[in-house]
Every structure is written in C-alpha cells, then in structure tokens.
C-alpha cells in the first residue's frame, strides 16, 4: 500500500516536471530530443489507469507544475516563452481529465474577467495574464481590448462573484482604468479588482480603489492566492 503511494507520488511528480518541460505528448520534440518519450497526455492517462483521482492529478501534478514554474519565473530562472509552452502542455492534460468531472467541467478557482480598458488596443500583456491564470486554475472570460466600463459591468451581471482584471499600456488610458474601477465599485463594492500594465503601479492601484496591482502574470497568481485563499 505504502509502495503504491510512493509510485503514485513519483508519477504525479513526473507529470509536474513534464508540464514544466512543456512536453505535451510523445509526438512532440519538446524538449528537443524527447520525441517518443511520454508527455503529459500519456502520463495523465497512466495516472488515471493506476487509479489516481482526477482531483489529485489536477492539483498535485498539473497545477503543481505551473505553480512551480511560476516560482521559477519570479526568480528569473525561466521566462514567458517557457511558461507559455508549459501552459500548452498543461491544457493537454486538462483535456484528458475532463471525463473525471461531472459534465466534463473542470473545477476552477473561480471566474476571472479580463480586458484592456477603453481606448487601449494593446492585448499581449492581457493575453499572457489570461493564459497563466488559466494555468493556475482560473476560468478566464476575456472581454478583449478597448472595453468600455459598461462592458465590465455587463460581465459582472453575467458572472456573479467573478474577479476583474484591468489592463492598460498607455498613460492616457489610466484615466479609463480609474473610471472603470469607480463604476465597478458603485455596482458591486465587494468585487475583487486587479490592475496591471506598464504605466500602472501599486500606489495608483490603491488610489483608484483597486484591490491590487500585479506587475507581471506570475504576480497576479500570487496576488489572487493572497486575496482569495
């Protein structure tokens, strides 16, 4: 019995490491030279066949892999491309687990509504945050770019209890960010709102009434863990 536990523990650890390496399945050659070796897909299938629950595989292997990579990102040991590659491998693992959950719906930390504020068309930063938060177990609702405050208010009605993330890359659109937070507060004072983007900082976030400022996608994961443990 204990031996089974050790074997399963090693398998979960191996999946976590394979997520971090970004190896989706045996067909891919990521990392280079790994073609033919099992990837996340095959290892998750093996874990399910050995009786491990979907919940454990999800939390102790897939999400654990992304958490570990997030720490390495914060320590400048890996960079955004590696995180994106790992997120793709993790998504492939998600697909294998869908049958484990009722209606094929994965359990999530909650809904994270994200958008670039009105007047701003930049969306790469927003997209990165969305990808990495999805990797941390959040269900993402991406509203796109140039979103008027009303678009966020509509999402509040559509996804009760959601967290809202606002992105701005221009100094001019920080004004739109301020207006959006104000209107969210008027409609739903308890909604958690995070802000990010090059011209924004923690002081500005506090000043406009946001709950927090995330300088990068990894920090957004940590901030949400703090605010909504």
């Amino acid at each position, binding site marked *: 019995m204990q031996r089974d536990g050790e074997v399963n523990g090693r398998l979960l650890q191996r999946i976590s490491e394979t997520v971090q390496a970004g190896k989706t399945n045996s067909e891919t050659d990521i990392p280079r030279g790994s073609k033919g070796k099992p990837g996340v897909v095959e290892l998750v299938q093996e874990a399910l066949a050995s009786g491990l629950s979907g919940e454990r595989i999800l939390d102790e292997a897939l999400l654990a892999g992304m958490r570990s990579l997030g720490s390495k990102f914060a320590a400048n040991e890996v960079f955004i491309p590696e995180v994106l590659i790992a997120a793709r491998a993790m998504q492939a693992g998600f697909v294998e687990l869908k049958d484990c959950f009722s209606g094929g719906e994965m359990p999530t930390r909650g809904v994270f509504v994200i958008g670039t504020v009105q*007047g701003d068309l930049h969306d790469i930063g927003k997209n990165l945050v969305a990808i990495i938060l999805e990797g941390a177990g959040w269900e993402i609702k991406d509203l796109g770019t140039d979103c008027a405050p009303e678009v966020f208010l509509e999402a509040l009605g559509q996804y009760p209890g959601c967290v809202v993330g606002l992105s701005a890359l221009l100094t001019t659109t920080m004004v739109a960010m301020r207006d959006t937070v104000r209107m969210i507060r008027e409609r739903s004072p308890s909604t958690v709102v995070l802000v990010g983007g090059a011209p924004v900082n923690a002081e500005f976030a506090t000043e406009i009434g946001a709950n927090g400022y995330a300088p990068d996608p990894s920090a957004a994961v940590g901030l949400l863990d703090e605010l909504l443990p």
Partner: protein
Amino acid sequence: MRTGKLEQWLSQPPRGCEETSAEFVLDSQDVARALGYARGSVDDISAHVSDVVATMEAEAQSLIRPRWLWKPFRGMFKGDCCIVNGSTPLVVGDQIMAQLKNATAVVVYVVTIGEALERTVQERMYGGDNVGGYVLDVIGSVAVESFADRLQELIAGEVSEFGLKTTNRFSPGYCSWPTSGQQELFSVLPEAPAGVDLNASSLMIPIKSVSGIIGVGANVVFQQYPCELCSLRGCHQRLA
C-alpha cells in the same frame, strides 16, 4: 558656411523612407533581451524556444514593412515646452526638457513597421499558437525600435556635417510627456505620416509604430543609459 548648410537642412520638406523587409536585419541578441532573457544571450534560450524564435524571425521578414517620415524644426524652448513650427507647443515635461534645453533644432519623426505583423500576431494568439504569437509580437517591437535607431543614426550622421550632435529619442508616453502629446506632435507633420494614424486615445495605428523628437545642437548630450531619465522603476524594459 556651416550655418548656411544648417539653415538649408532646417528648411527641407518632410522626408520619408520605405524599405523592403529584405533590407532589414534583426539583432537576435536584442530579441533575446526583449523576450526577458536578462543577459540578452541566445545561449540562455532553450533549444525549442530558440527554434520558435528562428521561425518567427523568418516569418517576420515578410511581414515587416518599415516606413518613416521626419522633419527638422528650429527649436524654441519655454518652461517645460518645446515649441516647433513656430507656434506648436510640445509639453514634454521637465525630464525631457533638461535634455533638450541646449538644442538648436528638433527633429519630429514617425516610424512604423506597418500592420501586417500585428495582424499575424492576433491570428496566432487567437488560433492557439500563444508562443509563436508572443515571440512574433516581441520581434515586432524590437524591429520598430531598431528601425527608429537607424533613423537616429541617419540624422546624427547628417547633422555631424554641421558640427552638431543629437540627443536620445523621446516619445509621448515616456518621462512624464503625456501620450496625449501625440496630437500636437502629429499636427506638425503631414496627415497620416508614414501611414500612421492616431485613435481617440492618441494610440498609434499600426500599433508597432514609434513617434517622437530628437534634439539637435552643438551642446546636447546622448545618454548611454536613457532609462535613468525615467521614473517608471518597475518597467520590464528598464536597463538601469
């Protein structure tokens, strides 16, 4: 003699340039640095990411359409304003004004790599290739900055013939020069310079564009570490 040449240079009409991407070479070290690899060394990049970068650099060659348009103006300075074209105030702020105060002329410029690359980034990101889309976006940013550097070199070369030097490039949105300053900046150039337009929030379309000013004078200084002029401490592009 030199004064006469300078006057002639200042009176020239706006000058444009359009290149094919074949004439344009990206610096892989710059791309590595912009992707976050702090040492800017391609050796730090994993083999797979390296492959993606190489593929995207090759794809970018057919997507980059470099264009620029620029015009020199006699510089007049008052408070935190640089006045160009006789009466158009560019409210650049104290930090930039400290660099411009000794300038005798100011070049106003717009540089772009066009919109094809941006469209492909969107297609890749929304088509499921986040890695390729992200890398291509970063390559686009490096390309437009690199093209702007080339314009700076061209201008520095021309004014050196009059015994003059150039400052760094300064753009609205940096160093407390509000992004809304784009409106005044664009007003002294022909309509849609280099094919670049502004939207209501003063964002340039295509997005991969750079606009700004360069000071010219005998006693101006080019800062090797321009990030020291900026108060945006948390900027991921910060070099110092």
